[in-house]
């Protein structure tokens, strides 16, 4: 059964130096509050997995939490570069960052295989492209019936998976709705999990018998952090703060403006700072 913890305790208990950590949320429901807590607790040498590293990993990598990044698209969506990730890759600042790069299709399949307890995923992919030349994890398998060759990637089975969700009930069952990305897969594929939620309610208010629900016993810790996904968003709670994404380009371009922003908005704050965003109106 899921435990209800505060964010600091959940990160302390679940996330350790050197862990392989996946924090998912495809544009929607990115667990920013949890990322900030990991930065505050100064975790080091993490292997970070995310299809789209987005600002959350730009921040964590810029603050030195990671030694490796596994990803498939590394920009600031619709805006430009994730400057802190580029600085780490191109200039090893604040520390060297190894990268393992995939396509979206491969990573989505790798999460799916992880959730399904398979050792690898196969796909019709990586045909005629250069990535397999630089990523030895991309291999091939032959269909035992047709002789066709398919690409393979290892299943993703993180030490820790962290996602943000809409709400939990008092037993710790968790509801997702809208763009659900790979979040169910990450939770099911990970050894330990943290789910931050907008609220805890008596009744999940699942709109459909087929609603996307993670039963309590699949979740390690449930943490209530209203607004905890900002500047990403929570369907029905608040909208994506696109202006923040645009503004981040300038904040993150230089090391000193980045560090100043992090000091003011992350290091000297706590999860409560996200609550103001929860009142930004329904998405």
């Amino acid at each position, binding site marked *: 059964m899921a435990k209800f913890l505060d964010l600091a305790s959940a990160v302390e208990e679940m996330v350790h130096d050197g862990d392989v950590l996946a924090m998912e949320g495809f544009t929607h429901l990115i667990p920013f509050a949890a990322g900030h807590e990991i930065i505050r607790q100064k975790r080091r040498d993490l292997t970070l997995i995310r299809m789209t590293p987005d600002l959350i990993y730009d921040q964590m990598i810029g603050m030195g939490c990671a030694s490796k990044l596994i990803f*498939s698209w590394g920009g600031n969506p619709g805006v430009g570069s994730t400057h802190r990730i580029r600085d780490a890759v191109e200039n090893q600042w604040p520390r060297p960052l190894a990268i393992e790069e995939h396509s979206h*299709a491969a990573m989505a*399949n790798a999460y799916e295989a992880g959730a399904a307890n398979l050792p690898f995923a196969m796909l019709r992919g990586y045909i005629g492209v250069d990535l397999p030349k630089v990523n030895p994890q991309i291999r091939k398998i032959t269909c035992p019936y047709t002789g066709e060759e398919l690409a393979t990637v290892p299943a993703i089975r993180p030490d820790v998976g962290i996602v943000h969700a809409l709400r939990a009930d008092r037993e710790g069952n968790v509801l997702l709705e809208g763009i659900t990305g790979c979040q169910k897969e990450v939770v099911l594929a990970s050894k330990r999990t943290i789910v931050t939620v907008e609220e805890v309610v008596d009744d999940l208010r699942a709109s459909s018998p087929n609603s996307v629900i993670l039963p309590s016993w699949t979740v390690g810790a449930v943490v209530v952090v209203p607004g905890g996904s900002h500047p990403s968003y929570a369907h029905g709670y608040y909208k994506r703060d696109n202006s923040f994404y645009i503004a981040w380009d300038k904040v993150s371009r230089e090391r000193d403006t980045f560090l100043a922003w992090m000091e003011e908005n992350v290091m000297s704050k706590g999860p409560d700072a996200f609550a103001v965003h929860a009142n930004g109106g329904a998405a």
Partner: protein
Amino acid sequence: MSLSYKPNEMMTIAAARALRNDDVCFVGIGAPSAACNLARLTHAPQITLIYESGTIATKPNVLPLSIGDGELCDTALTTVSVPEMFRYWLQGGRMTVGFLGGAQIDRFANLNTTVVGDYHNPKVRLPGGGGAPEIATNCREIFIIMAMGKRAFVDKLPFITSMGHGPTGRERRALGVASKGPTRLITDYCIFEPDPETQEMTVVSIHPGATREEIIENCGWTPTFAASVAETRAPDALELEVLRDIQARTKAAHGG
């Protein structure tokens, strides 16, 4: 009376025109998204737009900044998980058109969005492939939209992120890929289509006011012109109005 418009607007409008009412289109963010929604709001109201975030048959009122803005889900017929999107929908072969952009392109419409310089010691690290490598082979055909320039239209790509017709134009067929690959490349100066023999992207239509010299000047290889080159029809008032409307709404919504 002729209307005044920017080359970028001509590019988006020309791209939109390439889409048909019964297309099922896998939409990339940015220029492809603008073109696809312009098509939907003008001549192709029934077009099915699909974004890799899992949103199927979405009808956004403002253009999304990201591939997964709430607007896409709110206006979709349904939204599926990302693994399902890539497995059942893209790999499932259900897309008639994949719409891509890129940082760099070569004459056979191979694209690079990964890296400039050596992969392990990059001069410029670009965002990476995202959905593109599998979009390029699993959609029935590919439209590409890119503004021209010598840094973008290059003689030789440092890295192939997604395959067009292959480094020499022959690899796609040789690998047994059944889909057509890039059938149209829409730029701010002109439209390219692959030569039926060589698969080299060839200028088939030049936008009003643009010249062959400008095209040559802004291309990193010596571009081939088709035997008969058309003049692209200029944007009409409705196309411009709808495009500018949605872009204004988008700007207001994103507060950028």
